[in-house]
């Protein structure tokens, strides 16, 4: 039994926990382009000072937060009615509808993001469609804007929102709603007082599962966003791969973790609670 505990413990300690200590250590060093690896160890806070003083990093931090929060809200607004409709469908349809939500998750993330390039591009399929239907004569190109990034996040993470919402809504006892209707409650107030509170754990889980990866997203802002779209994951990537500034990239990684430590702790607590609640 001790071996069963030790195997995952040692593996994760060595390859997951220990590396974070290294990131912190490197973030305190300085960039040394002539060395290989390009780092001179030290105990300076200059990289963190730069994060606070340089507008680029502050702006990237804030706009990651804003983009992820907006996209999470849109995903919730789209995902909630979908999850509700699936949970209320007949059992035979329910499994098919669920499978159709899960299927995109099994296909390549990169290719699902790529799919939007052709749709949103200048003179792309969406613009052609808008001109053809006469809805807009000179539509502005969406690719390369923050809207494209939001759309990409909503699209890529919608299944992560629908599944926990569905799990919460499926358990809901319909007789509660009938009782409310019989007692004279309107559908909207029955929803607000019964359905919504009972599905709240699903809402929280879904929002965290979208928000947390969206904040650190790299592929979506890189492929769908433009030069003006700042996101912290992309800044980290560029510092590392383009500028080869490992210490600064490490400091950016830590600032990203600081942003996410609250949501991640909340997610962990909820995950533990949801397993305890089972019989």
């Amino acid at each position, binding site marked *: 039994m001790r071996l069963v505990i030790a195997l*995952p413990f040692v593996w994760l300690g060595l*390859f997951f926990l*220990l*590396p*974070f200590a290294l990131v912190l250590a490197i973030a305190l060093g300085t960039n040394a382009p002539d060395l290989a690896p390009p780092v001179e160890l030290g105990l300076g806070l200059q990289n963190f000072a730069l994060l606070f003083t340089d507008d680029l990093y502050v702006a990237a931090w804030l706009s990651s937060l804003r983009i992820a929060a907006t996209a999470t809200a849109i995903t919730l607004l789209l995902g909630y009615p979908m999850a509700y409709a699936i949970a209320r469908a007949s059992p035979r349809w329910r499994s098919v509808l669920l499978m159709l939500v899960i299927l995109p998750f099994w*296909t390549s993330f*990169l290719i699902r993001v790529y799919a939007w390039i052709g749709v949103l591009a200048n003179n792309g399929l969406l613009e052609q469609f808008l001109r053809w239907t006469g809805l807009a004569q000179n539509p502005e190109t969406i690719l390369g804007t923050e809207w494209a990034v939001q759309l990409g996040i909503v699209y890529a993470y919608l299944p992560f929102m629908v599944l926990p919402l569905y799990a919460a809504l499926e358990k809901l006892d319909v007789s509660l709603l009938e009782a409310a209707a019989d007692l004279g409650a309107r559908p909207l107030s029955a929803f607000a007082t019964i359905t919504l509170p009972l599905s709240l754990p699903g809402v929280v889980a879904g929002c965290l599962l979208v928000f947390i990866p969206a904040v650190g997203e790299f*592929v979506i802002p890189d492929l769908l966003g433009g030069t003006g779209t700042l996101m912290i*994951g992309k800044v980290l990537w560029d510092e590392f*791969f383009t500028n080869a500034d490992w210490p600064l990239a490490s400091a950016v990684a830590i600032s990203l973790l600081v942003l996410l430590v609250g949501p991640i702790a909340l997610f962990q607590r909820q995950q533990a609670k949801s397993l305890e609640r089972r019989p």
Partner: protein
Amino acid sequence: MIGLPSPKRSREAQPTSPKSRYGSAQAGRARLAFTVLAFGYAFLYLPIALVMIYSFNESRLVTVWAGFSTKWWEALVRNEAMLSAAWLSLRIALVSATAAAAIGLAAGYVLARVPAFLGRTLFGSLVIAPMVMPEVVMGISMLLLFVGSERLIGWPDRGFLTIAIAHITFSIAFVAVVVQARLVDFDRSLEEAAMDLGATPWTTFITVTLPLIAPAIGSGWLLAFTLSLDDLILTQFVAGAQSQTLPMLVYSSVRLGVDPQINVLATIIVAIATSALILSGWLTRRRA
């Protein structure tokens, strides 16, 4: 594609009066549900469908239809770089899914069955955290570990091994969660009966527990396999200069714009994923 979901009535009790407000609103609700689902699924599937259709396009321009052609399919089959990248990705996915299934099984078992030991809280956090850790952060931290260890003990060289280790590390969580959920739902009396009849814990695990949680381990393995095949960010950090996996190749090609060969690849991936999902759905239904 999507049928009208029939509005669901109460599971047990019939409504007291057929004219209850709840009943009269149902037709309108069904129509609304249909609209919501049609819109939602169109959003999920239309972009992918367009990519698949345009893989048969004659033109190089992915947004202009110029007639039916299979020339991009022929080009992909002859694309040596793509084929060897796919082969590397497959081998890494096989190795890392298998290792992640073994370690994830151990982790899920401990989470479900060992209520207290020194470091239990840390253990729980360590297992779950990689699920939500931003990949850029995990990528840079693992690279620093590999570079550091290479400097200290001359091992490991970056490539197959480091990519596999990275993929195993973030897949463990997904296997563990699936296994844990299955073990928590599971009827303990079967294990207790085996123990009462004199089976050792190990024999009980092999003959009773393992067969019952095998579907969970299988779907965990499949999840780890898919995650490994699809991973770009972690791989890009730890791959080194020599190895190029399929997502790395796709990414470098997509950055330069749309490429009809990527459309072909997308069509193949969607076809494989769809058949795998249908197959696994069929298998679990047979077991149930």
